């Protein structure tokens, strides 16, 4: 699997560290316990298109959002996490 880092170009996925689902957003500090439980622990875990965070550890140290199909590992898009919010 190759990830096209928008800064460094196509690189083997072993240069990157996977950090999981990019969809959950941290709730406000005064949110309910249930909202935090959902954010920290519960996942949609889709079989199909998945938005996930990768860190280019052996490259430019950018945080990236990768859209990938979890059934085929085919990558649809890669963007910088910052500014994508």
């Amino acid at each position, binding site marked *: 699997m190759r990830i096209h880092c928008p800064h460094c170009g196509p690189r083997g996925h072993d240069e990157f560290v996977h950090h*999981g689902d990019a969809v959950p957003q941290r709730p406000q500090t005064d949110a309910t316990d249930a909202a935090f439980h959902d954010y*920290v*622990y*519960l996942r949609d*875990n889709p079989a199909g298109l998945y938005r*996930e965070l990768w860190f280019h550890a052996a490259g430019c140290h950018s945080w990236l959002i990768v859209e990938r199909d*979890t059934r085929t*590992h085919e990558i649809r898009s890669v963007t910088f996490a910052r500014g994508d919010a």
Partner: protein
Amino acid sequence: MRYSAFRLFTEALRGNRGWQPAWRDAAPRPAYEAVIVGGGGHGLATAYYLAKVHGLRDIAVLEKGWIGGGNIGRNTTIIRSNYLLPGNTPFYEWSLKLWEGLEQEINYNAMVSQRGVLNLHHNDAQRDANVRRGNAMRLQGVDAELLDAQDVRRMLPFLDFDNARFPIRGGLLQPRGGTVRHDAVAWGYARAADRLGVDIIQNCEVTGFRIQGGAVTGVETTRGPIAARKVGLACAGHSSRVAALAGLKLPIESHVLQAFVTEGLKPLIPGVITFGAGHFYISQSDKGGLVFGGDIDGYNSYAQRGNLATVEDVCEGGMALMPMIGRARLLRSWGGVMDMSMDGSPIIDHTPVEGLYLNAGWCYGGFKATPGSGWCFAHLLARDEPHPVAAAYRLDRFAAGRVIDEKGQGPHPNRH
């Protein structure tokens, strides 16, 4: 038909023409008392103990593919109960005790082989951790022995003891750990359950649930609707997807783990060895192949096949542990999709839907759990209360702050 040495002998004389199929290829009936979704090791064991221990007769196991096609037939066959935390140890020890009597129980040769599991350590900190774990095990009635480098050298002279980066200083041995022929476990439980009247229905995928007033009344399948008073989910790597059909969101991600087998070699490795400086574990099958594996690939996957970077990483672990493995040729490798939970521990519990029960989150350690999981899940389904040794495996433990995190890695499924 009972299997025995005598039967084997007489069949050999008759050209093996008298063997019957080991279980019926059942067609679904319109209704059952209990339906188990997923015909892997856990689903089949659950059905067997429901019938055997709790006397239920009206049970179906629904499997979307074929029996033994999932992780039960894909794992590296290691069994052990060398856990640290009190929520885990009694459960895995009960499971190991069930393994010890399994073949007599189900009249099936599963090649349960208690050849020992040795976890190596390479520095002082790892030794201290092994001492602590060994003490915790012994306090809970589990066998554990601390070995120093000399003991290990006598046992496994071919390891790379004086490796400059990862010298071997000793290890923690569980003599009662070992290996079991994995697919025989599926077939053995299937046959034993079938003989107690359980319908094992293959090529039958559950595609939805019938829920009325918050209680489950049945399932939708590719072979038509089936009514059931109780439904138990044992879908391993697909738990999230199946639970989502009932409106549930689980603390689980699906990840792929690979396994590797070399060409057959003469007897070389007596038991199971795990490398402490990287993630690598190895044993030798009865056919002679070296069976080994390492880390999961690290990113969510339903692809049931792994990546080359992980192959390289696993093989590097093997080379660091026992350089002679570089001479063996790899015959096969494959992957399996597993449900990695947020704390690395499993779930055996009710769900918010009445009559719907969940058995999930087994990560890459669920094979050794097969008999215990079946036993405890059957207990929960039959009596509506958790079995004492599985009482910590609650679905609400994440919300309640009672996670069972053996590795202390936090809510990151890919690091457990």
